[in-house]
């Protein structure tokens, strides 16, 4: 039978709803996909299912009370959130934290990056069929959560970084626990790489998938690991150093392909760099010293003084009832979070409560760019792309 004898086949596109209760959308992201066979013709994302009005709530709280709120935005990188918020407020107050506090913060921020990347690697690997990667990653993440528990008694949201420094001094055995983790981790990272980096199935599923060009990545505001995988060598730690990152020796890994695989390569390389930074920071943390800035406007007095001195008692009372007063003005001090540039634009009207707190959430912009990455691709690749942009819906919806 010749081809001309075939009757014209009537085809139509199919609209498929994906999410919000889909396990591979990393939370409650809803995608409406228009499919032509298995090819995606158009996609539109609906967000807002996890909107809890944290920015509005923050306006009702005192400055120090905002820390636990912002930690719950991007719940996989809690300490990057609180670090960014504290840095912005400290810039407004014109406060410089002691050197020891800076190195502790660097160490915790980098451990948080490893922590977040481990969850990303585990879930991303599992969605593409590599379940053992997830089990391995969560095994090492457990050690990091134990360190969090050690410093603050809370595993996911330690609220350990405060405006003006830290909540309390490091616990006994902290250095030892971190050192043990850092000695163990690079070998385990090799183990993950053995499972994925040269894995034929993984490479087939990720190479050339979800490509985004260098210019597009910048125009869409994807500054962070996604842009670095497209060849944009921009890292806040390098370009706008904070906390003394300019004194540390580390590389900014970049790739050029801009696909899912290169995002994987960049993030794994980032974990290795984080280990390097952690070692350098750990060396610089002296065993004893200040854990917060010595400023009566911000830091509560030590307990033994509260019990014995009138001034300390008054100061204690003021700080716990009225809170910190921040001079009027606005500040935006970004940090390099696990998902890219993360920062808080805070406005103060000179009182003890913030006038406006705005989070720059890298996940929101990544979510916006998702459509560009998946249209024209196959439906099975949607999972790979969502995994690779590493969105946290708590950070998207806030």
């Amino acid at each position: 039978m010749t081809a001309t004898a075939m009757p014209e086949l009537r085809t139509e596109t199919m609209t498929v709803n994906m999410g919000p209760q889909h396990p591979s959308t990393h939370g409650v992201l809803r995608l409406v996909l228009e499919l032509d066979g298995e090819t995606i013709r158009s996609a539109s994302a609906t967000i807002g299912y996890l909107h809890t009005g944290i920015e509005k709530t923050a306006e009702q709280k005192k400055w120090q009370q905002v820390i636990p709120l912002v930690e719950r935005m991007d719940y996989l990188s809690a300490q990057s959130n609180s670090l960014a918020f504290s840095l912005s407020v400290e810039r407004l107050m014109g406060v410089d934290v002691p050197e020891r506090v800076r190195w502790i913060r660097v160490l915790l921020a980098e451990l948080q990056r490893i922590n977040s990347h481990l969850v990303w690697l585990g879930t991303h690997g599992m969605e593409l069929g590599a379940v053992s990667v997830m089990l391995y990653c969560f095994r090492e993440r457990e050690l990091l959560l134990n360190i969090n528990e050690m410093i603050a008694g809370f595993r996911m949201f330690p609220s350990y970084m405060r405006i003006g420094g830290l909540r309390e001094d490091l616990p006994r055995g902290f250095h030892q626990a971190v050192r043990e983790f850092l000695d163990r981790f690079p070998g385990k990272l090799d183990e993950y790489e053995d499972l994925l980096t040269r894995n034929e199935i993984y490479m087939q599923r990720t190479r050339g998938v979800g490509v985004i060009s260098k210019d597009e990545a910048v125009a869409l505001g994807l500054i962070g690991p996604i842009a670095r995988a497209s060849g944009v060598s921009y890292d806040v730690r390098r370009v706008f150093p904070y906390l003394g990152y300019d004194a540390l020796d580390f590389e900014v890994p970049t790739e050029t392909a801009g696909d899912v695989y290169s995002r994987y390569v960049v993030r794994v390389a980032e974990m290795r760099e984080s280990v390097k930074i952690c070692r350098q920071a750990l060396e610089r943390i002296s065993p004893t010293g200040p854990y917060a800035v010595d400023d009566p406007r911000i830091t509560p007095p030590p307990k033994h003084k509260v019990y014995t001195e009138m001034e300390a008692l008054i100061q204690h009372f003021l700080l716990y009832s009225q809170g910190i007063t921040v001079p009027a003005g606005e500040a935006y001090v970004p940090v390099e979070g696990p998902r890219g540039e993360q920062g808080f634009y805070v406005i103060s009207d000179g009182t003890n409560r913030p006038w406006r707190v705005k989070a720059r959430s890298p996940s929101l912009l990544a979510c916006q760019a998702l459509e560009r990455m998946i249209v024209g691709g196959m439906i099975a690749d949607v999972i790979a792309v969502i995994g690779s942009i590493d969105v946290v819906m708590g950070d998207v919806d806030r």
Partner: protein
Amino acid sequence: MDATALIRSLMEGAPGAHVEEAPSVDGQPTVFVEPADLLAVLKIVRDAPALRFSCLADLTAADFWPREPRFEVVYHFLSIELGQRLRVKVRLAGADAHVASAASIWPAAQWLEREVWDLFGVAFDDHPDPRRLLMPEDWEGHPLRKDYPVQIRMTPRTSEPMQVTEAEFRANLQRDRLSRR
């Protein structure tokens, strides 16, 4: 390049526009722009060779109610080539607050402007998709406005269960079967 040189080259790039240097506590170069001149200034911010702010890092707003002009829309720009940041602010009056959309210049602005519309009620002219972003589509009011109450007491609403008789149920089932065939 320091803040004053950056702002001077911005003013030279847009000779007719009202660009006014604003005080900045955190050291980021900050300017106020008149709403009418905004689009022209934003094009220069991206395209002028001395500026090249190819990345819109953040776009947000703040409500200074009861002060007038009430709203400030704030743009945070980043120039990766020059390693520079710039903050551009627009003051808007409370009644009929609207400003030109930057979505045609930076695609990143699209959702950020939807968020500002959603939470502040500041409209963006010629926005390609002017819908709410975070709140439900039928939501009333704009929550981040300062005159929006923090806690709203509402009577709980329940939906009535659908009442059908057995005959209607069977008829529906039959109709459904027929349409599927």
